[in-house]
């Protein structure tokens, strides 16, 4: 009892400016951060690894790695961190923040580019600015099952075929001996140009304005 409204708003003000989340959303995410970190100051890879629902996800290693990747911190650094604090957690989540009514056209374009950049960084594991065939193959293998309907050979074939298609779209006059280094970010953007991301590729926060108060807990 006692923390006034303005004090917490001030604390989160520069976070709001940097990440674009609202105060409500930041507070909810902070609670979640506390839950994940066990009330510590930082989260490590093990904390994220222990989320049961995440274990279902075939590319969970890449997703977790994305949180510790410095390139996703909007700061032009490369490399990876061992632990992240709340600010870095928010920076990564801000790639997927929902657009509100006030977002201008340029801001939407910028957000779109951010999301593409995020996905690009996830594929480009050695930070050299291109997705090589090896890296691409790795992602395909993770997504497909090692023991399911598609064997490893078939997975390789799929990756090769997709890569070939990308190469032919972007470098149309490649001689048969030319070596295609890999997909650069501009190529990546080009490939995914038509992909409609605005309405689906963000996290939708529930509305906090409704107050249903009864004596006791709300029924769920």
């Amino acid at each position: 009892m006692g923390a006034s409204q303005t004090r917490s708003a001030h604390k989160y003000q520069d976070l709001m400016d940097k990440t674009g989340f609202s105060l409500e959303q930041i507070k909810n995410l902070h609670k979640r951060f506390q839950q994940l970190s066990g009330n510590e100051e930082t989260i490590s890879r093990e904390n994220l690894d222990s989320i049961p629902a995440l274990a279902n996800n075939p590319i969970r290693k890449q997703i977790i790695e994305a949180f510790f990747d410095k390139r996703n911190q909007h700061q032009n650094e490369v490399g990876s961190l061992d632990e992240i604090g709340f600010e870095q957690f928010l920076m990564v989540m801000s790639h997927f923040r929902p657009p509100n009514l006030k977002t201008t056209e340029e801001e939407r374009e910028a957000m779109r580019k951010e999301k593409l950049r995020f996905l690009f960084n996830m594929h480009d594991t050695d930070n050299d600015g291109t997705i090589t065939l090896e890296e691409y193959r790795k992602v395909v293998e993770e997504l497909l099952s090692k023991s399911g309907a598609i064997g490893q050979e078939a997975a390789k074939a799929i990756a090769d075929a997709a890569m070939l298609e990308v190469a032919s779209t972007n470098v149309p006059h490649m001689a048969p001996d030319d070596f295609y280094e890999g997909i650069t970010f501009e190529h990546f953007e080009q490939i995914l140009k038509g992909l409609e991301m605005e309405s689906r590729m963000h996290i939708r926060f529930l509305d906090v304005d409704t107050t249903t108060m009864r004596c006791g807990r709300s029924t769920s």
Partner: protein
Amino acid sequence: MEDIWCVAAAVFQVWMFVVVFFIMLPAMFGLSLGVTGVYIQILVKILEWATLRIQRGRQEQPGVPVPLPSGIIERAGGSMEEEMEQLRSSRSMEGAEFDLSDAFYFCKKGLESIVDDQVTQRFSSEELASWNLLTRTNQNFRYISLRLTVIWGLGVFVRYCVLFPLRIALAIIGLSWLVVGTTLVGFLPESSGKNWLSELVHLTCYRICARGLSATVHYHNKENKPQKGGICVANHTTPIDVVILANDGCYAMVGQIHGGLMGVIQRSMVRSCPHVWFERSEMKDRHAVTSRLRAHVAAKTKLPILIFPEGTCINNTSVMMFKKGSFEIGGIIYPVAIKYDPRFGDAFWNSGKYNMVSYLLRMMTSWAIVVNVWYLPPMTIQDGEDAAQFANRVKSAIARRGGLLDLAWDGGLKRGKVKDSFKEEQQKMYSSIIAGQNNISCPKTSSESPEEQ
């Protein structure tokens, strides 16, 4: 100086007199003087008043966060295939086999899990929508008015200085009575008289302990109470569950032998009636455990066994996976649903955060413990059903009755990690989507929908 001692001694004597004659003796005979009922009614009135004040205070100070009941984000309900179709259709690519954009789908799902998931929140205490005047639940609530603070201060005084010593005294009396009584009964030869006496001793002790927590229990459907030779299963929130259930009938407990005070209690209990205590090494051997339990159940004259199949304490908002071992023993299962009212005190034992002693202290300084216990009709395993399906059926019945969420996740995730087989299932689903679209190296013909593994 001596006057003070005389006065203190006199006060102590009066107090003990009150405790023994007005609380302990009626408890032993299952009578109630109605004091607790009046107390609960007064409490409810005070808490309702407090809620209205807080609500009024909130309207004057907008922007105060409210805990959300079902998580903080909204999720799309579609299946994997539907969502991928939507992603791909926006690209208008013909016959796309595998697409970079598919990774987006998994990315989004992964981020959603990081922001909010169904399991992690079950292992911490439930958040209340309005404050119940206990400091420990005061997370989001601010200073609203002077009157509220005064009431809160009064509450602290009442809980710590009036109720707490009373409850400690009752608890000590109850436990020592249990040890002494069961040891005495243990000296008698085997007879129906001994059984009757041991039941009496157990019941009175648990009733005193329940008074020691100011527990008010409402039992529903008493006609379905567990009978001898059966197995009673219930959802697990706290070690106090045992006291709550044993207030209304005698059960044979199952568990590990501990050292210290618990061990003394366990050893004396087993002298008067057969409980099933295991050594730590025996617990690892599933067959030994099952055969001992089976032998106990087969002897129809023995008390019903009490088992908590979740294996760990959950925070009473949901029921997690029941371990099938308890359902392989055979015999009739009597399910029981236990629901605590969170307004009066948070009964969940977060064993990572609090040890047993501090947990009991928290319990004894809450307002009260109000519980609803529903006895469900007995169930037996049906033909063509295996133990896991039977366990799920019982779990759903308990969840429905108690108003709890029915989750399929394992309570053991509190301490351990999820098996890799879950990830493989998602991989298989995705690869069958891709394979289904271009007939790659698989014997099945192209199909519209992914096959369920």
